[in-house]
């Protein structure tokens, strides 16, 4: 080692790099941390890839067939044939069907009236559907499916397949609505959830490492020691966080590769735009973590604050449920979360195949967020003794 020179050679960049090197060494030996960043992506991939979906399946339903006609039996078969439903439970009265709904044993009661076959000949057949409003999202979807089956039902006697052969993809009525779901033809929820998997993982990672890391330094007294170093608090924080930017990109790569290899869902748009969008998001998330750590007095407090920032982030940002449908006020509140803007950008690039010019607004929003947080952190981070 050379003795310290008289001129000040330790500049801003080298200070940060030295601290970043130290942080990397610490990180490599932190086994729970390494376990967390590898286990979590795999766990979430499996959850969102296989388990979670809003698409109805195994729907239990009750059938009250008062008509006992060939047409009513065929309608029941067509409902079951959609694949969303279990075989129906036949009930003898409306009261019996209602009792099933009340116990939660059925999600829908389909009642076919006595004169269904006769009405069908006259051209005005009607059925009644009673849905379990206790599960509103499923009830709405199931109601929509039943209505579609009923509207497409031909009381005249031809089966669904025969009609499909004669009149392809058309709906009855004077207007033929040719519908297409872009970017996701089968409307698979998997694509909705996997597109933002990276955002969820990075929120977890960035917030927890930066909040816990700094509180940990303070608890073990090493933060006060930095008072004697030639570094400023901002240099210290930046040096500590720099390696985590690298880790974040690694985690994002795991998420993207996992979705691509495991589920064939590769980003449709520009990888460069994806990389550029991620940087301000990671910086913004890390700076929130630093802010949290400046509020907390102990690791336990930092964890609580972090966890309870992450949860509303997930709920309000739109990664799990569409933010467009949230009521006014709540929707705008979610706009204050970095994850909202990141998920908007992710969906544009990953699902819709957008490029850099499509995500300029999210990038600017995230940069603005980072700038504000940096100013706040700078003000909060003066090392204090005691």
């Amino acid at each position: 080692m050379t003795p310290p020179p008289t001129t000040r050679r330790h500049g801003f960049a080298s200070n940060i790099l030295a601290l970043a090197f130290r942080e990397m060494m610490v990180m490599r030996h932190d086994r729970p941390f390494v376990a967390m960043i590898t286990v979590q992506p795999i766990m979430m991939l499996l959850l969102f890839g296989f388990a979670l979906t809003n698409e109805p399946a195994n729907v239990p339903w009750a059938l009250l067939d008062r008509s006992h006609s060939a047409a009513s039996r065929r309608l029941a078969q067509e409902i079951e044939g959609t694949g969303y439903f279990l075989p129906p439970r036949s009930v003898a009265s409306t009261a019996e069907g209602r009792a099933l709904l009340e116990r939660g044993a059925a999600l829908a009661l389909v009642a076919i009236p006595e004169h269904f076959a006769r009405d069908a000949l006259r051209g005005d057949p009607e059925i009644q559907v009673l849905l379990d409003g206790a599960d509103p999202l499923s009830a709405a979807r199931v109601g929509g499916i039943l209505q579609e089956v009923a509207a497409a039902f031909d009381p005249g006697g031809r089966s669904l397949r025969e009609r499909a052969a004669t009149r392809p993809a058309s709906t009855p009525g004077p207007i033929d609505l040719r519908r297409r779901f872009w970017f996701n033809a089968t409307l698979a929820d998997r694509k909705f959830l996997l597109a933002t998997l990276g955002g969820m993982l990075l929120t977890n990672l960035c917030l927890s490492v930066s909040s816990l890391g700094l509180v940990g330094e303070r608890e073990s007294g090493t933060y006060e020691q930095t008072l004697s170093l030639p570094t400023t608090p901002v240099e210290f924080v930046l040096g500590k966080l720099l390696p985590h930017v690298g880790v974040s990109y690694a985690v994002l790569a795991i998420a993207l590769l996992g979705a691509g290899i495991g589920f064939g869902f590769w980003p449709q748009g520009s990888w460069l735009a994806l990389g550029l969008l991620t940087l301000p998001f990671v910086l913004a998330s890390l700076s929130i973590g630093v802010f949290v750590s400046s509020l907390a007095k102990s690791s336990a407090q930092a964890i609580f604050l972090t966890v309870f920032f992450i949860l509303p982030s997930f709920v309000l940002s739109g990664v799990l449920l569409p933010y467009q449908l949230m009521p006014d006020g709540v929707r705008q509140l979610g706009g204050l979360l970095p994850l909202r803007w990141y998920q908007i950008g992710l969906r544009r690039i990953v699902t819709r195949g957008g490029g850099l010019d499509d995500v300029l607004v999210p990038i600017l929003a995230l940069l603005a967020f980072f700038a504000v947080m940096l100013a706040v952190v700078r003000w909060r981070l003066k090392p204090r003794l005691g």
Partner: protein
Amino acid sequence: MSWRRLRTLLIREVRATLRDPFTLTVLIAVPLVALLSFSFVLSIRVEHLALGVHDASDSSASRRIVADLAGSGSFDPRHYATREALEAALVAGEISAGLVFPPDFARRLLGQRAGERAAEIQVLLDGAETILAGNADVFLRSIVRASGARLAARDVGQGARGSAARPEPAAGSVRAVTRALFNPKLDGTPFMVAGTFGFVLSFLTTLITAVAIVNERLSGTFDQLQLTPATNLEILLGKLLPLGGIFALDVVLMMFAAELILGVWPRGSALFFVVISAFYVLTSLSMGLFFSATSSTAAEAVQKTVLASIPLIQLSGFVFPVRNMPDAVQWVSELIPATHYIRISRAIYLRGAGPIELLPELALLTLFGALLVAVALRSLARRA
């Protein structure tokens, strides 16, 4: 086991908790924040959704349909001069759905003869937002069909209001009249409120218990207490009973907050709900105990809790219904106590179910609760 010694420990714990403003804040603020943020987010109503329109037919019929869509309050139409511009807006996420009228739309619609193909409209929906696209599709089709039927009947003069909110079937096929029990407007709020109890009582309870016990052990007060005449069980109960009591109070607090702010009150017996919740708190406390017994630092306990809680809560049907999962995953869900508690909570809140309807769920919850308490006590006994 002596009641006097236990009482001393209880008093100590209550005092210690009351002196700690941070924990108190967490215990009051977190349930309320969770309640408010979750209760608003689930909505199936489509309101003021940006809808791109490219109208190549430029006819009174197409304008009528667009006006009907705007008048329903569900869609805010924006016009695009070319199809390419509309498609670009869809990629950029500016619009969630697009409607393309071909040049011959009006001629086909109004001059329709039997046997001729129907007038065509192309609908493009943003599949990137699956839930949104599904809901928008149902609304859009019902409105367009209704106004198309009126137009074809040369009934253009009549207003479109009133018919717009509910899907209307097309003429000539079976009409399905739907009605929802318990929640006619299919409002997402009570569903989410009832689920939030499960979320708070599973996650917050486990987390706070784990941290409290580990901290006690780290600061050495656990060892000190073991030197007193108090037995291990008493020390543990002295720690857990006040926590359980606080969470039971949290349940009541959340119930009143839900009633006052959101107007949601259990349809069934409120007392029955509190009793079930208090029992469920016991299972969550045991879970926290288990995590604390297997970790050596507070940070480790929290990491374990969070890592385990995310899948547990997701699989419990809090947001995504268990019934939609693949069979094998459904079996895992059925083994999670939170699944049963959330089911019970929703049944009491929304359907007004009583103990008799809920008997099987209650039996399972009791079984899992008893198992968890036994496991937690064993792991702790080995440690002590």
